[in-house]
């Protein structure tokens, strides 16, 4: 594959995906800045950031298509020290470092196990 090649069908996918991603990103910001929201909607939006982060975490840690082996489930084991470091340090950077290190160590020690 030439470094600078852009195929037509790939370009089509990129442009289509970009458009359907752009619209939900900008539309609420453009419209809702003009109108006053009712109280219940404001309260609802108040919970959205917490809910969406938790949902993304739940999906990342527990939704697997692979068979149930220990190797495929160290992600949620690693979440325990990651959560603890996050609560302890309240730092995004340390949390990411702790999570990546925990997974690396868990995978590394699992690879050392016999069988």
């Amino acid at each position, binding site marked *: 594959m*030439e*470094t*600078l090649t*852009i195929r037509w*069908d790939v370009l*089509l*996918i*990129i*442009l*289509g*995906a*970009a458009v359907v*991603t*752009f619209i*939900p*990103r*900008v539309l*609420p*910001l453009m*419209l*809702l*800045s003009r109108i006053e*929201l009712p109280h219940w909607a*404001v*309260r*609802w939006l*108040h*919970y*959205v*950031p*917490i*809910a*969406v*982060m*938790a*949902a*993304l*975490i*739940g*999906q*990342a840690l*527990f*939704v697997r298509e692979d068979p149930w082996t220990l190797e495929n489930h160290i*992600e949620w084991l*690693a*979440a325990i020290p990651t*959560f603890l470091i*996050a*609560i302890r340090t*309240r*730092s*995004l*950077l340390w*949390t*990411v470092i*702790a*999570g*990546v290190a*925990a997974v*690396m160590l868990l995978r590394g020690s699992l690879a050392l196990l016999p069988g």
Partner: protein
Amino acid sequence: MHEEQIRLNPRIEAESEDTFLQGVKDCIPTLLGYWSIGFAAGVIEQTAGLSVAEIALLSLLLYAGSAQFIAAGMIASSPPSVIVITIFFVNLRHLLLSAALSPYLRHLSPLRNMGIGALLTDETFGVAMNKALVQPRLSERWMHGLNVAAYLNWLFANLAGAYLGRWITDPERFGLDYALPAMFIGLLVLMTVSRKQVAMDSAVAVLAALIAIAVSLSLGGSWGVIAATVTASAIGVVIERWKR
């Protein structure tokens, strides 16, 4: 009650410090996440047969981690229409992020809001909402600083993955794939701790995670996050009304 007011008040003048550069600085804690996830995305895109130019376009125009992983995974086997529709659903959650951010950017025109929303990601949203906890509105310059720093680092990481990916056969061995969930955990904890309503927030979070898992396992991945966010937030509002 008094204590809370005292703690909240001193931040009113903070808005004057919200320069472009401050936005760039506030992006720094997320950079390790962007680098590792972007690098992993670049490696996987390269393995899927995309050229460097195509990878650059993908990260510049699409600019969405999970969607880029999906595009790379499907590109060999699925027609363009199916790929685009799948990505639409995966990225539909931005509707909610964009709406949640809107009260803090109401002082800007729709066009200026479009400029900010165009570069909205899970991570910049998390950082911005953290900031919004202590001030009634977010500065445009600060948002651009945050967004542009994230955008350029994402491009850089994708290209690094595209070039170096040929020599890295196993990014998972280094736990690189875990940077994304770890960052979500960090953002969730930071928000919950600073909002000072830990019980309600934790209840909504646990509920959202359970619904996301249940829906994803039964209906497939793309709907889980959206369904969970809509439902768990609504239940949060209902419980709030009950308690009063």
